[in-house]
Structure formats: structure tokens, C-alpha cells
């Protein structure tokens, strides 16, 4: 009975008016509802709009940093395969041959430099001072004295300058010294191509 409406009563009730909430009230409630919906479904990481690039940039930076650290660590750590298992390294024949050649060359160079460094000192003990220097005649002592000077300076002189020094010796008639210096020069710089003009100056003329 009571679930049915009384038409007369309903009509009179409707006549009371059709009040509605204000527009401001509507907007406030709808805005709150939208905020709540957005908040509930906001992604945990990915932001929206203009802040999105921050995260892409951050991810790229982390990636680059990780790669750099990995490479650095690998460089600093010795390769286990490169560490010799015994004092005598096991190498292939080719490697061994190449390495031996290299070592021999290096040994030769080291010995030569050592020799050049030591010789002047040994000779300087017996060599006369510039004031006592004998006349410019070729002699064994002079040869022993000058040649080490030339080659000792070879440690710091360029090949071109050395050739000039040899040429000077030749010009001064100190041919033995020049010959020795030239021979040594050729031994030290086997691949150096001496120009024809310089060759005439440094070689003994027959």
C-alpha cells in the first residue's frame, strides 16, 4: 500500500519547488571526485606531461654510469688468462720468436746506451782537458777521445745532427773516428736513408 504514491500528495509535493544545488557546489564536488579518481590511478613512477623527460633522462644517465663503471672495473682487474701460471710464460712459437726478437733488440739498445754512457766517463779519466788537447792530428788517443764524444752525444742528438758531426770529423781529416762513428750510426739507424749529398760528406773518399 505504502509503496504506491498518492498522486495528489505527490503533485502538491512537487509544487513546493525544484530547488537545486548551486553551480559552485556542483563544481566543487565534481572536482573533488575527479581528483580522487586521478589520485587513485596515478602511476607509481611514470608522471604525466612535461616532467616525463626527467625520468627518461635519469634512466639514460644511470645506464651510462653503469656501463662506465663496468668497463672501468674490467680494465683494473687483470685478465685471469693473461696471468702466467708459471714463471716461464707459455707462448706459441710465433709469439716466442717475435718476443725474443723484440727482447734482443731492446737488450741491444739498452746495452748500447749503457756503453755510450759509461765510455765517456771511463775515457774522460785519461782524456786531456780541452786546454791540453793535442794538435788536430789523427791519433789513437784522439780517436778514442772524440768518437765517444760523438756517440755519447748520440744519446741526445738527432740522426741529422750526428751525420753533421761525422762530416765535421771527416772534414778535419779524422777519418778513423769518422769511419767508426759512421759504422756505429748505421748500426743504430739501419733504416735511415742518408742523402747523397750527406753521404759524400760522411764517407771516406777513395
Amino acid at each position, binding site marked *: 500500500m*505504502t509503496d504506491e504514491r498518492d498522486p495528489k500528495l505527490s503533485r502538491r509535493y512537487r509544487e513546493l519547488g525544484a530547488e537545486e544545488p548551486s553551480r559552485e557546489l556542483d563544481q566543487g564536488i565534481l572536482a573533488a571526485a575527479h581528483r580522487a579518481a586521478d589520485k587513485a590511478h596515478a602511476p607509481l613512477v611514470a608522471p604525466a606531461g612535461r616532467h616525463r623527460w626527467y625520468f627518461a633522462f635519469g634512466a639514460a644517465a644511470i645506464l651510462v654510469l653503469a656501463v662506465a663503471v663496468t668497463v672501468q672495473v674490467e680494465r683494473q682487474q687483470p685478465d685471469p688468462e693473461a696471468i702466467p701460471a708459471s714463471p716461464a710464460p707459455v707462448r706459441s712459437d710465433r709469439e716466442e720468436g717475435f718476443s725474443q726478437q723484440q727482447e734482443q733488440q731492446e737488450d741491444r739498445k739498452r746495452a748500447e746506451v749503457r756503453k755510450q754512457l759509461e765510455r765517456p766517463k771511463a775515457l774522460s779519466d785519461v782524456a786531456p782537458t780541452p786546454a791540453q788537447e793535442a794538435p788536430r792530428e789523427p791519433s789513437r788517443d784522439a780517436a778514442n777521445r772524440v768518437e765517444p764524444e760523438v756517440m755519447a752525444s748520440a744519446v741526445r742528438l738527432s740522426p741529422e745532427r750526428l751525420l753533421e758531426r761525422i762530416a765535421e770529423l771527416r772534414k778535419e781529416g779524422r777519418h778513423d773516428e769518422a769511419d767508426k762513428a759512421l759504422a756505429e750510426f748505421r748500426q743504430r739507424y739501419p733504416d735511415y736513408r742518408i742523402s747523397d749529398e750527406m753521404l759524400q760528406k760522411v764517407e771516406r773518399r777513395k
Partner: protein
Amino acid sequence: MLAYRGGDAGAFDRLYARHRARLFRFVLRSIKVRAAAEELYQEIWMRVIEARGSYKPTARFTTWLYTIAHNRMVDHWRRGGLSLVSLDDHEVPANSPDPAQHAEAREALARFAAALERLPPAQREAFLLHEEAGLTVSEIAAATASNQEAAKSRLRYAMAKLKAALDDD
């Protein structure tokens, strides 16, 4: 409401559009003071938004909405030292302006409005839920956390008194 709970804000817009006017009138005619009614109306919708996660479609959304409205109303009356239930059997003295002061054309309507205002809050609520929100007796009982007999009784009394006011026309 399920769509809104799932994040569809547009679903709330549709719900709100469907229920806004009826709910507002229900609150306004229960509270009578527009400012207080607006405040309570807003509270009800905020509660709907907050409680969206716990919404279960065991009943019509309308029933759920007016259940929330009823609870807010009870809180309102309690804040004012009143109780819907305790006033069930007592007539509330009319404090509306004398209908005679209104224009002749609106005299009958004023008497009806006065009769509505004089109803005990629980009876008025039952009538408004029935007339404004379109709830059945069962739904009124559910929304007001009462049994069906009580809801039926309140509604019957309310309608009888209002009819009597109409018969005076």
C-alpha cells in the same frame, strides 16, 4: 559507481547528474536551512567519494547514497542535540511563517509545506525518501537502518498527516 571505483571519473559525473537535485531537496527539506543543507549535501558526496572503494553492488546505488545521507543527517541532528528516533512520536512545533501572510494562491501550498515541516523527522525522512528519492519501504528500512515495519509505519503516518493538510484546502 563500479566504473567510478575503477577510475572512470566520467561515471561519477553521470551519477551526480542523476541524483544531485533529488538528494539536495531531500536534505534541504529535512534541514530547512539552506546553508546547513548545502554543507550537509557536500559532506554526503564527499563521503560517497571516500567510500567508493568499499562500495558493493548489493543494493541499488540510490539506496546506498541515501543510507549515507541518512547517517549524515543523524550526525547533524546529534550535533544539534536532537534524535530522529526519539522524536518519532512527537510533533515538532511549526516555526514557519503564518500561511496567512502569503499570497492567496500559495496558501494551500504553504499549509502543505508547514505540515511537512511539522512531521517528526523520522516520518518526514521516510516520506522524503519515498517521494523524492523513490525508495520502496524495504529500501527506506535499509537506508535508515530500521526494520521494514517501522519504516512502513513512519511512511504511513507521514502520508496520513500530509493528506489531512491537503484536505484542509
